C-alpha cells in the first residue's frame, strides 16, 4: 500500500528517509524513474542511500505501474517517489489510480519559478500540475510531515 506518493527531484535523501521515514515507518521505498532504472550505477547510488531497515525498488515507470497494480507490495507500507511531475500522469495513464500526491522538493533551476518554499516549477511542469488538478488529484505542497500543508491546486491554475 502506498502511504506517501511524493514528487521530489532528489528522490531518496534525508527529508524522505528521516523526515517522512520516521513519521510513517515505511517498509519499502519505490522509485519510479526510467532514466535511473536504466543505469546500474544510478540504481546502486540511490540504493546506497536507503537505511537497512527499509527495502528499496528502483523501477522504470511502466515496471512500477505493473508492480503497484499487480499487488507486489501488498502488505507493505510504501513510499513512492518520482522525480518529475509527468511521471505521476504516466503512472495514472498506465492504470495506477492517484488521489493525492505530495509535492515536496522541486528545487530551483533556470526556467523554474517559485510556487512555495522548496517548490519551483517550469511552464511544462506547471501544465502537468494543472492536468493533475483537473483530474481531481490533491496536490499537497509540503516538505516534511510537520510542515504546514498547502494545497497547490489553486496555485497552479
Amino acid at each position, binding site marked *: 500500500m502506498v502511504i506517501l506518493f511524493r514528487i521530489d*527531484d*532528489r528522490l*531518496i*535523501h*534525508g527529508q524522505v*528517509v528521516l523526515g517522512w521515514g520516521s513519521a510513517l515507518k515505511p517498509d519499502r521505498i519505490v522509485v519510479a524513474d526510467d532514466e535511473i532504472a536504466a543505469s546500474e*550505477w544510478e540504481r546502486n*547510488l*540511490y540504493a*546506497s*542511500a*536507503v*537505511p537497512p531497515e527499509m527495502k528499496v525498488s528502483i523501477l522504470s515507470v511502466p515496471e512500477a505501474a505493473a508492480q503497484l497494480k499487480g499487488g507486489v507490495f501488498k502488505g507493505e507500507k510504501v513510499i513512492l517517489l518520482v522525480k518529475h511531475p509527468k511521471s505521476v500522469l504516466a503512472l495514472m495513464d498506465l492504470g495506477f489510480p492517484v488521489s493525492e500526491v505530495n509535492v515536496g522538493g522541486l*528545487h*530551483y*533551476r533556470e526556467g523554474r519559478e517559485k510556487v512555495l518554499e522548496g517548490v519551483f516549477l517550469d511552464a511544462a511542469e506547471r501544465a502537468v500540475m494543472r492536468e493533475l488538478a483537473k483530474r481531481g488529484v490533491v496536490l499537497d505542497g509540503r516538505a516534511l510531515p510537520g510542515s504546514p500543508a498547502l494545497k497547490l491546486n489553486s496555485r497552479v491554475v
Partner: protein
Amino acid sequence: MSDGMGNPAIAGIIVTHGRLAEELLRTAELIIGHQEEFYAISGSDLCDENVIGKIREIIGKRGDAKALVFVDYFGGSCCINSVRAVEGEEGVKVMSGVNLPILLSFATKRGTMPFEEMVDHLIRRGRESVKVIDL
C-alpha cells in the same frame, strides 16, 4: 603547499545541508587560521545541478592535486551529489560524516602524508573523536 613529497597539497571541499559547510570552515579557521584550497558549499538553496557544477568547478582547477570532498550525512543529497560530481575523477574521494576534528586534522596534516594514508588517518581521527567522556 605540498604533501611533503613535492606534490601539491590536497584540496578540501565541504558539502553540507543548511549553512553547516560555511560554519564548519569558518570555525576551523577560527582555531587554526586561514586555509588555502579549502572550500565550503551549502546545498540548501541550490538545485542538484548547481551543487554538482560547483564541486566540478573546484576539482577542475586543482591541477595535479588530489581532492577530498567532505559531506555531512551518508545517503543525503549532498552525499549523492558529491559522488555524482566526482565520478570518474582520479585522486578525488568523498568522505561522509564530517566533523570538526576531521577538518582540523585535515588542515594541519595535509602537507605531511600521501593521499591514501591521509584518508585512513582522517577516518580514524573522526571515529576516535566520537566517545562518551567518562573520567
